[in-house]
């Protein structure tokens, strides 16, 4: 009965639909209920925090009158600057390595991912050498052109380097999303554009780029969220953003409510940006013409063009990976060559960080894929909203989530339910917190993937009588292989690098490479810190490369 309104629109399939109406209806609800439940669980720590938002804040008026404008301005400068740069550093190389053939292409195609393995708080130390190295030059500027010119130059160098640094380690989010989009674009569309007289550049701008839009948006959205909740790098560079305001207000002034309002501004800002993008996209939908089509043939480049393509792809790798790793190797060398004693159980820290990151990445990616499928199964405002809510953790500073998780488990503990003390204060708590924090990554990529696949194949499968789960496993999942592996990869390195959550929630004597590196860095022992930092980079890079191999296009089954 309930689906009667649909019947006239699909007269041909009417028999199938009417044959099993109750079951369809029931199953749909089950998926919806599952998605809602998962959203509820994931949103619980955020809600525990947001709960305080409406309360009276002592300091809010003071903040609004003093520092709020600065926080907002700095946040916006970083968001726009970094977004613009990651678009250039991510999209163009992705297009070049997927559609052109030039010397060094193969190596660059995976090397371009490596900067992901560099944590921003480590990159900050390395890049801060820039402003420090500029001191003699700045002193000259002050002598010759006066204080105003000096201050301007100092500011440009510092903001500029911070933006370059953030973009250089974050662009792979965009690069990965674009590669997976470009490599699955059918040759037919691009060739049609070429046949219609478009130059390669024009076919890129007019056909390939618009078709890759969901992927690019997903990548940039992740970058923006990383930027707004970065704490270490912006603090170090003296560019206080909303996130610094959150900590300063919460812990320095003891005003939880005002701090959470600042965090709320960040979440709302991200939500508004994503909604704006949806709106700009209008009614456009992304459907692959024929999923089984032959991948594009790469256009061989020669001479100057090849050199230029190489350079364009090499610069991001050099900035985001070779330079920081070079400095770290230098520092680690100084440390290891000196006779200073003191080491750390590197093996244990390595195994811990690695296994925790890998296990969480796999589980969370699988959950997110199922979740996104449930959302898509019956697109509705409500379900899309569920997706947005479940992804909000990524726009929230890690320490805020950690506090939310502590409150949730603390409350559960106080209820004295049987078994729960076993759960609280264990690795399960950290893994759960990672899920809350990073759910947006697989969600964004799965969403982009599902959008590009479109509905036709899935509808065909469903019309052939396959239930949703089977359709998901047999149709969507294989097609989602690339975006999901990319998501797992991003999750893995993100968790490996994660700091604030891990610091607060970890069990006793639980040191990962990230926490070890942080300890040494906060002692201002950069040389010693370089050793665990390099290990993080190595593990991350190896993980990325292994997963990148799985990403290579599968042999067509059909």
């Amino acid at each position, binding site marked *: 009965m309930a689906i009667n309104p649909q019947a006239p629109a699909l007269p041909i399939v009417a028999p199938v639909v009417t044959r099993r109406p109750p079951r369809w209806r029931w199953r749909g609800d089950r998926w919806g209920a599952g998605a809602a439940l998962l959203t509820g669980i994931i949103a619980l720590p955020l809600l525990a925090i947001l709960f305080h938002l409406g309360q009276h804040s002592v*300091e809010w008026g003071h903040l609004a009158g003093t520092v709020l404008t600065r926080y907002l301005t700095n946040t916006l400068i970083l968001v726009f600057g970094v977004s613009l740069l990651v678009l250039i550093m991510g999209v163009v190389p992705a297009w070049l390595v997927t559609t052109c053939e030039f010397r060094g292409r193969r190596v660059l195609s995976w090397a371009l991912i490596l900067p992901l393995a560099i944590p921003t708080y480590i990159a900050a130390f390395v890049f801060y050498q820039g402003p*420090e190295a500029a001191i003699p030059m700045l002193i000259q500027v002050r002598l010759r052109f006066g204080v105003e010119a000096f201050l301007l130059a100092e500011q440009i160098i510092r903001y500029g380097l911070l933006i370059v640094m953030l973009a250089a380690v974050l662009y792979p989010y965009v690069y990965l999303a674009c590669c997976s989009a470009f490599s699955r674009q059918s040759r037919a569309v691009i060739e049609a554009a070429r046949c219609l007289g478009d130059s390669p550049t024009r076919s890129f701008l007019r056909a390939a780029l618009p078709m890759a839009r969901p992927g690019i948006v997903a990548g940039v959205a992740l970058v923006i969220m990383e930027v707004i909740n970065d704490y270490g790098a912006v603090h170090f560079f003296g560019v206080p953003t909303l996130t*610094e305001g959150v900590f300063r207000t919460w812990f320095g002034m*003891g005003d939880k409510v005002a701090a959470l309002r600042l965090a709320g501004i960040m979440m709302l800002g991200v939500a508004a940006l994503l909604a704006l993008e949806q709106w700009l996209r209008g009614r456009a939908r992304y459907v692959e013409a024929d999923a089984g089509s032959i991948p594009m043939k790469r256009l061989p480049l020669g001479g100057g063009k090849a050199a230029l393509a190489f350079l364009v792809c090499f610069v991001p790798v050099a900035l985001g990976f070779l330079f920081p790793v070079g400095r770290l190797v230098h520092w680690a060398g100084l440390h290891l060559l000196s006779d200073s004693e003191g080491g750390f159980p590197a093996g244990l820290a390595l195994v811990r960080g690695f*296994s925790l990151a*890998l296990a969480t990445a796999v589980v969370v990616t699988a959950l997110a894929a199922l979740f996104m499928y449930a959302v898509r199964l019956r697109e509705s405002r409500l379900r899309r909203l569920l997706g947005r809510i479940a992804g909000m953790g990524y726009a929230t500073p890690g320490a805020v989530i950690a506090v939310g998780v502590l409150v949730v488990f603390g409350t559960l*503990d106080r209820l004295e339910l049987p078994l729960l003390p076993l759960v609280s204060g264990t690795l399960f708590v950290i893994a759960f917190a990672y899920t809350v924090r990073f759910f947006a990554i697989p969600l964004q990529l799965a969403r982009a993937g599902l959008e590009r696949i479109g509905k036709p194949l899935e509808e065909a499968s469903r019309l052939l009588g396959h239930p949703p789960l089977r359709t998901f496993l047999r149709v969507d999942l294989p097609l989602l292989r690339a975006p999901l592996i990319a998501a797992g990869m991003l999750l893995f390195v993100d968790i490996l690098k994660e700091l604030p959550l891990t610091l607060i929630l970890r069990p006793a004597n639980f040191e990962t490479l990230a926490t070890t590196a942080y300890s040494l860095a906060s002692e201002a022992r950069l*040389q010693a810190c370089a050793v665990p930092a390099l290990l993080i980079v190595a593990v991350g890079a190896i993980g990325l490369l292994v997963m990148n191999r799985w990403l290579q296009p599968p042999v067509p089954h059909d």
Partner: protein
Amino acid sequence: MQIRPALSLLAALAGFVPAVPAFAAEDLTLYTQRHYEFDEAVHRLFTEKTGITIKVVKAASDELIVRLQEEGTNTPADLYMTADGGGLDRAKKAGLLQPFASKAIKEKVPATLRDPDDQWVALTKRARVLIYSPDRVKSGELSTYEDLADPKWRGRLVARSSSNIYNQSLMTTVIEANGAEAAGAWAAAVRKNMVRPPQGSDRDQIRAVAAGLADVALANTYYLGLLEISEDQKDRDAAAAVRVFFPNQEGRGAHVNISGAGIVKSSKKAALAAQFLEFLLSDEIQSLYAVETFEYPVSETAKWSATQEKWGKFKSDEVAFSVLGDRNAEAVRLFNQAGWE
């Protein structure tokens, strides 16, 4: 393709299985803000001596307070340790600590470095001082923290962000000494005298003075000590190019903060925890702090390191550490108004 991820998942899960606990020898769980590698060596020494192992969670002091509050009586923590007196005071006021009964502690540590209700005790002292370039700062030019507001310092100072607890603690003592209004004006004037916006750590401020960008840096002494023994020649050169000045020697003394610890209220191992604190306060360990982290010992009988002797004796501000906790929010508010980022 389907098997490999499954296998790696299993392998990963294996990592979750905790190691079989060693024969229930006694242990203590410590929540600490101190990130020193040296602390781990101290813990090992304690274990060698007593057989008691120390299990550690390291995070920021206020985050650990939230964790203690949420874990309530289920907390595994026996001890709470910070690198700032304000944090100890806040933990006390949140009702998270219990008084220690140890006579030895009271005898060893001067009353000004203990909580009046014996809920925490200082373990080390750290002085926030002026580090200057002897080439560009004339002798007699430096005097007090207050003097840094003088226009003669325009374009000559560097300091780190006021989000840092060391600056906030210093500010609470300036408020205590001069009143809120004067302290706010002071912060605004000091900010105006800074050659560049606040950035980096104390280490970077010292390096900026060494590089000739500024003449005076506000920094903790132990950062200079760490630069002196750095594995990087550039750091050692920077340390050699600067000197330490202890301000306010004619008046209330230089601002000294503490690193300290208290016993967690719900701990059932108070006696063991006190034993650990006594160990940390022993002259043996106190003298090691002086050498290894360049913090000042709280024990008056412990030896200073050669570096500290070189910096010289000084008079320290003996303001009550509850001021640091009580006035912290006010300090941040004044920093916000003063535009000291």
